[in-house]
């Protein structure tokens, strides 16, 4: 499966179509639902994959999430952000699935990074893949309470307030969990420090 680096800001631009798409989805428009699926599938799948540590289980959960989304979209009244509503569904579904699994499967290395950037030499691409793999592994080892805000922040690009809305906790709790998660990542991946020094 292909991977790409998360670009929350660009993803946010995509969300501008949601309001029209959601309205059309509520009217039963299959094409609109396809549109919605295309916008969110990778992010929903990423969150599921990192949360469950297993891409097969993540695919099943993603499928279930979109089915639930389609059947429940009429319940969305626009009182909250659509993303808050959607990611609450994602977080809860992953939580349920984890309870079923009762054990953790490490996320399996799943093929090469996309070779879209021709300017990068093979060596740089390899180094980048190594870094991405290490980060992915470290995220997989975070406690769920720390991992969830990390995924919502960096995969989806949500604000602290939005993350708090999804997780049903305070903004301060989000800040505190992210702080702890960042420190754990730095501690586990301290050997990558030189890759991030300013030139």
């Amino acid at each position, binding site marked *: 499966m292909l991977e790409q680096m998360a670009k929350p*800001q660009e993803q946010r631009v995509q969300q501008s179509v949601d309001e029209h798409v959601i309205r059309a989805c509520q009217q039963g428009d299959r094409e609109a639902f396809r549109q919605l699926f295309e916008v969110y599938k990778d992010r929903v799948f990423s969150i599921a994959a990192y949360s469950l540590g297993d891409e097969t289980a993540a695919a099943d959960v993603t499928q279930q999430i979109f089915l639930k989304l389609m059947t429940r979209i009429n319940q969305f009244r626009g009182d909250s952000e659509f993303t808050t509503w959607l990611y609450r569904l994602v977080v809860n579904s992953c939580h349920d699935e984890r309870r079923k699994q009762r054990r953790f499967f490490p996320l399996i290395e*799943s093929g090469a990074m996309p070779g879209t950037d021709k300017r990068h030499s093979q060596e740089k691409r390899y180094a980048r893949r190594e870094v991405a793999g290490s980060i992915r592994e470290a995220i997989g080892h975070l406690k769920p309470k720390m991992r969830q805000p990390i995924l919502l*922040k960096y995969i989806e690009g949500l604000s602290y307030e939005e993350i708090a809305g999804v997780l049903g906790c305070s903004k301060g709790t989000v800040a505190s969990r992210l*702080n702890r*998660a*960042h420190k754990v990542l730095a501690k586990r991946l301290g050997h990558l420090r030189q890759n*991030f*020094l300013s030139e």
Partner: protein
Amino acid sequence: MFRTHVNNQFSAYCHEELSAGETRKVAEHLIGCTRCRKEFEEVKLGIKLAEQLPLVSAPDSLWQEVEMLLDQDGHPVNERRSWSGISFLIQPRFAIPAFAVLMGVAFIIALSLRDRSEGTRLTGASWDVSRLDGAPQIGSISVNDKGKLGIGQWLETDANSRAQIEVGNIGQVEIDPGTRVRLVETKPTEHRLELARGRLSARISAPPRLFFVDTPSAVAEDLGCAYTLEVNDQGDSLLRVTLGWVSLHLRDRESVVPAGAACATRPGLGPGTPYFEDSSEMFRKALTKLDFEPNDPSWSRTPTLDLVLNEARPRDTFTLWHLLSRVNGSDRARVYGRMAALVPPPEGVTRDGVLRLDQNMLNLWREKIDSECDSVNSVPAVVRDVLGRTRSGIHRRL
């Protein structure tokens, strides 16, 4: 006095989730608290790592599976209805007005694209720009009192223009006449400008290593400070620090410059040896020759170094300390001799150790110089950290 640590707010600080007052409180605390600064560096690294988190693409077959299940479950779907709701536009009575509207929109988009400067890369992030004098321009558009500088865009002032940039929530940069700057990057862990020519004055209230200015001959890195930086048409630059400390570096060469001092840079060579601006003119001229004209046949190195050594005051041992690692053999021994005469090395620092550039000994001596000379009378811990990693001011290992 009791001081509340701010270590639980670092992520929110980096993600700009704090109020202006809270942001200022964290920044001020960080400048003075070694413990929090160390922890802040860890959180910053954690953020940089998390920013690289790869997105995992969903399997291609997923949509077919979802659609199949939708059909099986008999979910109400209406495939004929278009979500965009624009199908009515193809009816004859709407076609002509709709076409006119579309053409109008296309024309406006074309105009806005034309106004963008060539080669710029715009993203969502931007800095506020205020016009101070004349008609500064962002790309090809004049700034009328207020403007936005996006990533990749150039801000240019002519001989009569000045402008001020708000650097996120960490400070301001004043752009003098005849200056060309570009916003390279702005994110919680790094704010970076490129100064192609002209002069800017920066005042930054933030933890070290958040604000950078790239010039053709070095990178200026803020260590909590105020300074001016100017670049001429040849790409030479001159840094003058008015408050705090600034690090100048190019590849493995680095100079750490305190308030009251200046440092020149040259393309390809990087930063020269920093010096106090109240040092003698002869001292500064000789230093420039040593730094940037090593192959000039019209002068001899030995008398020039003698001139620097003879003109040095106790305060200038700061400059000589940087020089130690930039000269070799007998020249280094002469620099040592003069330094020892001006500020004797502390206990545990030997001549042999200094001549072989023992980092611990150099640091010990540097601390004594800083404490004895009013040159650098209050070195914040953050700068000591940087100096500790700056091998005699020449090797950069941050």
